[in-house]
Structures are given as structure tokens and as C-alpha cells.
């Protein structure tokens, strides 16, 4: 199963830093993530679409289409709105 890594306040909301979630696409994995962690509903996804400013990377690549296929060994990282400099 793909690994999902969570950051910032998502860790508190989900109670974990990392979790394995099944799914054939990034979208499917995120939907399942939210299903298993209802506290992330409205934070990561809203109406099955990414919330504004949420960044999702696939194996460290940040300009992705969330309909992309994922493999067993893939790592999806999810960041809530963050900023700095």
C-alpha cells in the first residue's frame, strides 16, 4: 500500500505522522485517508477536491495531478496551508 506522510496540524488531527492507505490513484488514497480519519474532512479535501493551499507531493514531486496512478512503494506527503521564508 502507498505510504501517506502527514505534516503540521494534520499530525495532530490524524494522531499519526505516517500511515499506509490503499488506493489506485492519489485521489483514491486521499479519499480513503479522509474516510479513515474524519477529522481531516474539510481540512485536506472538500467535496473530494483538495482544499485551497493544501500541497500534496508524490515521491517528492509537488506539481502533480491527483488522478495520477500510484504504486505500492509510492510515498504521498500531505501539507496543510503553510508559509514562511
Amino acid at each position, binding site marked *: 500500500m502507498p505510504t501517506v506522510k502527514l505534516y*503540521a496540524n494534520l499530525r495532530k488531527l490524524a494522531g499519526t505522522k505516517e500511515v499506509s492507505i490503499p488506493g489506485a490513484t492519489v485521489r483514491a488514497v486521499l479519499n480513503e485517508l479522509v474516510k479513515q480519519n474524519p477529522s481531516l474532512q474539510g481540512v485536506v479535501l472538500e467535496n473530494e477536491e483538495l482544499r485551497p493551499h493544501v500541497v500534496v507531493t508524490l515521491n517528492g514531486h*509537488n506539481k502533480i495531478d491527483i488522478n495520477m496512478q500510484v504504486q505500492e512503494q509510492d510515498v504521498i506527503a500531505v501539507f496543510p496551508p503553510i*508559509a514562511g521564508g
Partner: protein
Amino acid sequence: MAGWSEKVLDIDLSTQTYQTYPLDMEMARLFVGGRGLGARLLWDMVGPEVDALSPENVLIFTNGPLTGTGYQTSNRFSVTTKSPLTGTVLDANSGGFWGMQFKKAGYDVMIVRGKAEKPVWIEIKNAEITFHDASELWGMRVFALTAKLGQNNNKRNVLCIGPAGENLSRMASIMNDRERALARGGPGAVMGSKNLKAIVVEGKERPVINDPERFKFMLYETRKLLAASPLTSQALPEFGTVVLMNIMNNIGALATCNHQQTQFEGADAISGEELSEKYLVKNSACWACPIGCTRISKTEKGEGEGPEFESTWAFGAQCGIADLPAIIEANTLCNDLGLDTITAGSTIACAMELSEKGYMDSDLRFGRADQLAPTLEAMAYREDIGSDLTDGSLRLATKYGHPELSMSAKGMEMPAYDPRGMQGQGLLYATSNRGGCHMRGNMVGPEVLGLPKMIDRFQVQGKSSFVILHQNVSAAIDSLVICKFTNMGVADEYFARVLSSVTGIQYDTGELTRVGERVWNLERLYNLREGFTRKDDTLPSRLLTEAPTEGPSKGWVVQLEPMLKEYYRGRGWDENGIPRPQKLEELNLADLLVRI
């Protein structure tokens, strides 16, 4: 005129005299304040014949028409000088309270010239200017000195140098309000070279606002906008700027061990999440700031402000150190000694690589958290190995025969973002007028965070237009002067309306961006006059030729040349990076071209 106090305070330390005179309001209209106004004044006062640490260099402190008005984050001010680190034009900008107090003292600008025969400190109480003997204060560290001179956040504010400035370290900062810094480029060394230990300000005047009712409504609107943005209402207050550590590491753009790698295995241990969970005492905020991104952190050795992302990275990933308490303590120590954390950390990292490769005889090694504090002490006092490090990584690496190991642009150490994983950031560093810096525009928004929209971070073609826009907007915001974080919740177009309501001069969106472009071109002209050329618009060879061998940025180097050519064209400069006369005419800078 509303917004500006229309008054310049001009101090000559050699004679310990001062004069006041009216601000040139046409100059103020064109350059607004802060960084822009400072650069324009420096152009007239300090030419290529002046050594940065000589009495002929000047320190120009400027606030802006928004400073002290109560507009959100209108606490900031700038110092402009010729940089002793880079030899370029330098402005450094800081928040806290001092800038607001300086505005309330009734001045837009304070010029400090000459050199005092003995150490002095200056006290400003509106029209009353007093020179005090600082012989007994010389040698004091920043925290003790700030307390001794009576820092009181809303009433009396202290700006000073620590031992690093006294010892003319080219990475010395000027500190204000105890732990805020005019950090980069060595302005503290210029202050030290003048035997000036501190400037204390008390002010009683209220800035005049042209249209108070409209301004009041804009305060309300801005408050709503900042509260509605998840970036300014949640992300920055909750985790501070250090929250960027994990995402930069995740995408393979976190410079590590003097830019030898682009990912750090200890990143999570020094992240914003770790800081908030284990060391955060509370948040803090600058004057008139509803965002409150400042961290107050505590370790067994005490409490201090920060650390910010760049400081955490400089002593962390860049030095291969995953010990967060040691990093927090190094940051606090830098504030007390008056050292720039980015240059200090990156210079130590450079020394670590030089030592590990046998080019330099020292025991400095990556990962050695125990070496941070003693090395910083030695740097501030120019003792032992510190005397080699305290003038920055380029001078250090050059001394030991390997200048290519200095991770700097134009002699200023770059911050955390490894541009091999962010092509636009590479162009930004190479063309920054004060050297390797992320505060002259920052591509982390569009290239990493998708702000306002995600663009391909590896794309080269077309990238220069984003860089130019970010540089111009950044120069405009630095001239107002407000905090760039405000721009995460409020569009820059809105700032033009705020400026109009405060000053009564109609600035539209285009005009404010033109102010930024004007400032950028003026700074470019200054550097050209100093002898900088196209060949200085470059990066360390490591970033141009050595691709990471693993991680998401594997195989990438910075494709600088094509971006640079496109950038010059986009700026209206010739193929050598010299602004064309037509561009300077357009920006009301034509008279300056004749003089380079």
C-alpha cells in the same frame, strides 16, 4: 504632507553634531520610503571610492509612509549602507517596535556619517538629540545592553550592536528591540566602525493620515482578509516559519551539509512541528501585527525569540546538525552577540567542509552540535579560528584556496532553498542586488507552495517573468515599509490603495509596482557603478555543475544561462545586464545613467 514626516535627521559622529532639513518630497514620491528611499540617498552619498568600513560610508535609517500608522505590520524600517560583506548596495529591514518609535520621533530618515573618536550612543527624544559616552557600554552584549538602556516596547526602543559589530565582523547585525535584527550584509560592522554602540528612540508624534475614515475602513478590511487567510491566521501563528523545513526536504530542495546534498535525514527533528511540540513557550508579535509568527522558545539554557526557518536551517541541515536545542541556543547566542544567523551558519558549514576535505586545519565537522556555540563566540570576538570565519564564507574559502566551496552569491551566503530543485530561486539568487538572499523576492510561493498558483519548479523557459514580478513587488513592499507576510493574505494591489489613503497621492497598482521596478533598477545601477558586471550574476559552481545523485531533484543543476538571458530581456537591460536608456527614462532614472 500626510504619511511622511518630511524631515531628515543628519548626524555627523566625527563632530558630534546634527542638523535637520526637509525631505525632498519628489524623491519621496518616486521612492516612497524604506529600502527605496535609502538606496536613492545612498546613491548620492557613497560612491565606489568609499570603503564600507571607512568613516565616509553612511548608515541611512528609513521608515516609510505607512510606518507607525497602525496599518497591519506597519512596524518595519530599513538601514541602507554599502555592505562590508559584499561591496554591493545593502538594505536590511527589521520589525519589532523601533521603526514605529522612530517615526513617532518625527523623522523619515536618519543619516549617520563620520566616526566618533570614542564610543558613543545616541538618544533621540523628538527634537532633542543627545550624544552619550559609551565607553562603559563597549563590550556589552545585546540583551544586557538593551535592558540597561531602558527598552520599553511602546515607549522607548533600543537599537544596538553587540561584540560582533564592535569587532567589525562582516556578518555583524544591528539588533533592535533585543532580538530583532537588521541582519544581513554586515550593517553592524559599519556601525562598529563608527564607534556607535546604540541609538535609543522615544517619540510622541502621531503620523498624519490624509484620509482617516478611508484608512480606518482599510484597517477593518485588512483585518478581515488576514483572518480569512489560512496562511496568516493559522499556518504562521501555529508553526512559524520553521514549518517549511519538512516540505523543502520532502521535495529535495533543502540545502544540506554546505549544499553537498539536497535532503537532510534529520529534517523532521528540526522542523516546525518539533519546535512547536517540545520547545515553544508562546507566540509573540511585532507592533501592530495580528499574525504573530514569532516563536518564543525554551531549552534548558533559557528562553529566546525564534528561531526562524532560515536560522534553523543554517545551524541545522546546512551544518548536518539535527539537535534542535543546540540550534535554538545558537540562534539566541547570535542575537546576543549581534551576528547574522544565515551567514554565520553557512560559514561554519563551509569551514566544516574545508576541514573534512583537509583544506583547513581545524576539528570542525558536520554534525557536531557541540561546536556551534564556541565557534560563534570565537567569531564575534575574532579569536582563534573565529578570526578566519567572521568575515564570511567567501573570504574564508578563498583564504584556504577553495572559493568554490563558499555557498554564496555576490559574497552573501544563500539561505535554505537549494536552487537545483527550484530553478527560479536560482535565477533570483544570481540576480539579487544584495547577494544570495530570499527576501528580494522568493520563489517558494509559486514553485513549492502553489501560491498563488503552482508552477513547475524545474521549468526554465518563462521563469524569469515570475522572478522579475516577485523582485519588483518585494522592493515595493520594502519601501512602504510593511511585512511581506501581510501579502499572503492581502493582494499587493490593495497596498497601493492604502498608500493613497495615507499620503493623499494617488498610487494605482501599476504605479506601486513601478516603484519596485524603479528601486530594483536603481540598486542595479549602484552595483554597476561599484564595478559589478554580468559575471557577478552567477552561483557557486556546485549548483551549476554538480547534480544531486538522489532524491526528487536528482540530475538537476541550475540552468542559469538561458534564464539570465531571458531575465535581462524582460528587465529591458542589454545583453550585459546594463539597463537600457529607454528603461531608465521610463522609470525616471535617466539622470543617473549619465553618472555611471
